């Protein structure tokens, strides 16, 4: 009896593995929870990219649902999501504020001139200090911030059509409503 049991161990181990695999199939490992979600968006004051004499702080957006999109002229994948942002701004779906991250001011402006400027304005974070406060580790990143200034969602990497339609826009609508 004990011997027979011993030979059954591999089967039991495998059964446990299958159970985990089955649960695993229902999860998305790419979904990384951000510690920033549900927290107030960190405050900052930065000059504007296009107008160095003027500043921007997230306070100004109080009462609006808005997107903070972290981008840079050196960032290759930003070009991938950029047409979607331009399209969104043309349709006036939601105000988008850019955060030009660790960039040269001229490069950033040229890049916008070339690819289109979907932003209400871009804050200029040349040293990347604000990026650190927002936990940016892969540019582009996009934050959805509600009327009270709370971060409700964070997209790491380029916004995809799917993420836009299934997650971001419905969320914006819900927060607006």
């Amino acid at each position, binding site marked *: 009896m004990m011997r027979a049991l011993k*030979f059954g161990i*591999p089967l039991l181990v495998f059964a446990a593995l299958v159970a985990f695999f089955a649960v695993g199939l229902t999860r998305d*490992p790419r979904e990384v929870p951000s510690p920033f979600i549900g927290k107030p968006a960190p405050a900052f004051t930065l000059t504007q990219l296009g107008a160095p004499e003027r500043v921007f702080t997230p306070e100004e957006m109080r009462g609006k649902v808005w997107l903070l999109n972290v981008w840079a002229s050196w960032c290759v994948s930003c070009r991938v999501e950029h047409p979607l942002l331009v399209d969104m701004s043309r349709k006036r779906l939601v105000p988008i504020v850019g955060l030009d991250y660790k960039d040269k001011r001229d490069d950033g402006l040229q890049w916008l001139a070339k690819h289109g400027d979907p932003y209400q304005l871009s804050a200029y974070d040349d040293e990347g200090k604000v990026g650190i406060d927002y936990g940016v580790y892969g540019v582009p990143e996009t934050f959805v911030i509600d009327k009270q200034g709370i971060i409700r969602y964070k997209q790491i990497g380029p916004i995809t059509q799917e993420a836009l339609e299934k997650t971001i826009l419905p969320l914006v609508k819900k927060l607006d409503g």
Partner: protein
Amino acid sequence: MIPELGHFALVVALALATAQAVLSFTGAATGRMALMATSRSIAIGQFLFVAGAFAALAYSFVTSDFSVLNVAEHSNSRLPAHYRFAATWGSHEGSMLLWTLMLAGWTFAVALFSRHLPERLAARVLGVMGLVSAGFILFILLTSNPFERLIPAAEEGRDLNPLLQDPGMVVHPPMLYMGYVGFSVVFAFAIAALLEGRLDAAWARWSRPWTTAAWCFLTVGIMMGSAWAYYELGWGGWWFWDPVENASFMPWLAGTALIHSLAVTEKRGTFRSWTVLLAIVAFSLSLVGTFLVRSGVLTSVHAFATDPRRGIFILLFLVVVVGGSLALFAWRAPRVGLGSAFSPVSRESFLLANNVLLAVALAAVMLGTLYPLFLDALHLGKISVGPPYFDAVFVPLMAPAVFLMAIGPVASWKRARLPDLWVRLRWAFGVAVAAALVLPFVLGRWSPLVAFGLWLGLWVVTSSVAQLAQRLRTAPQATLGAKLRAQSLSWYGMTLAHLGVAVFIFGVTVVKGYETERDLRMAPGQHTRIGGYDFEFKGTREVPGPNYTAVEGTFDVRHAGSAQVIRTLHPQKRTYPVAGQTMTEAAIDWGITRDLYVSLGEPVDGGAWGVRVYHKPFVDWIWGGCVVMALGGFLALSDRRYRFARAPSVPAGAAARAAAR
């Protein structure tokens, strides 16, 4: 038309695979020779139809038929021809078809080279392989049809992922799959043996060459993947413990253990149930690896676009194949019996220790790979397990395994005496220790870890030399040449494979101990010095490629303090407009004693670039060691006792009667 023919061929192949399984099993169960005999021809037919399907897909790729969805998504008319061909397996659908082709190929080989086997065993082996093949073809037809049409056809294809546009893509996946899938043969042998209830030395002798062959391909496949990652990803790393790397490495560990345990089963009749279990586990891990990669339950650089239906199908398939075989194992293995006893010091014990260490290492790699999945399933949070974990558990497990590997072949079967072993190996041991103490000074700087690594590698070499010397001393032949020829090829193969491990360890140790890297901003005309070499950045220029444009940097390399340029390196930064991706193409000056490696990062300003420069001493020994291991395997395979192991084809009874007359 061609894609439809391919699709149709695959449907026919499914019918043939099913017939192969059903007829073989029925024939074996009822003892009807005629049924069993058909399994070979059906297996050959199945291979031809799968090959036809594969050829149809490859044809669509090579001729850029963008009315096939898969081609439109993964190829482009400006892609060079060899990459258009390799793009056949550049998608999930295509790579599953390649997998199936390999499986059918191994089945074909078994059908050709199984005439010396007892009819019933051969039929059951082909039956199991037919069953696995049917499962995979069904999977392709139901969830991953590569022949799906795109109407109207696309003007142009979306291009193959630039990361895959590399010579590595042409050879790495086929080799790896040859290895992965090759374990299906020994798996089928194991299932057949469990069904027969007969598991003896003859069974082990028949299974050994198939296992070794699969293992050699897997070794080469993994090695090519590692070398590819090294020069393509531009980080200078050669192993990342990525889930998919682990998925290929786990069957390798199981296969390595299996090769050794099969040796014991053949020579001594022991370890029987353990050997069978390893045979099941090695192939099951190949299947689990497929599941992990294809279902998207783990994140990895290799992950394809995922579809939950695929994950569910493979999981069910896993339950049937792996669950079924382990249940069969639980039921039948208690009857296969134990072998002869052996003393705690004997070659059996050394091989047992090797197996235990490999199995524990396998479990540790598996735990690390699946840990994120476990935690997520239990709602305990999302984590990832990185190289520090794997390095910390893997190296301490492998070090004693390598230490024992040097002693095992010297020890005698059944009972060995430690004092004898000491007498035989003391010189080898002493030389290895002395050389390991001195060598680090020659290479640069002394450190205990480097000395330890070198000692392990040297110990394998010196003990192999000691063993060869002893064998030559005791061989009865007169001349040295005759003595050398008298040793079996399988012994040479084993020794060569072990030396491959030593070469590998030497490479890893020296690279880890002495590599230097520099990550810096360089403007044209600037120099940097690393590992005794001087690199001068001459600037960049635009160069066109077939389906990309590249910025190419020029670096003049000199020995430090010398004016003569010994090498000019041209790393590139390529932009693929169709896929919208940028790729770093490192420039490497390969060398036996060191690699010089330059890759371009991002442009900084005014012609300056972020540049990575590496000096990697003896890094090529890592892959060289793997090649030597695989060569050892092929050498062992060509041993004559596998070639002439044909049993008389007349049934045993008839032969006995003939002899009596």
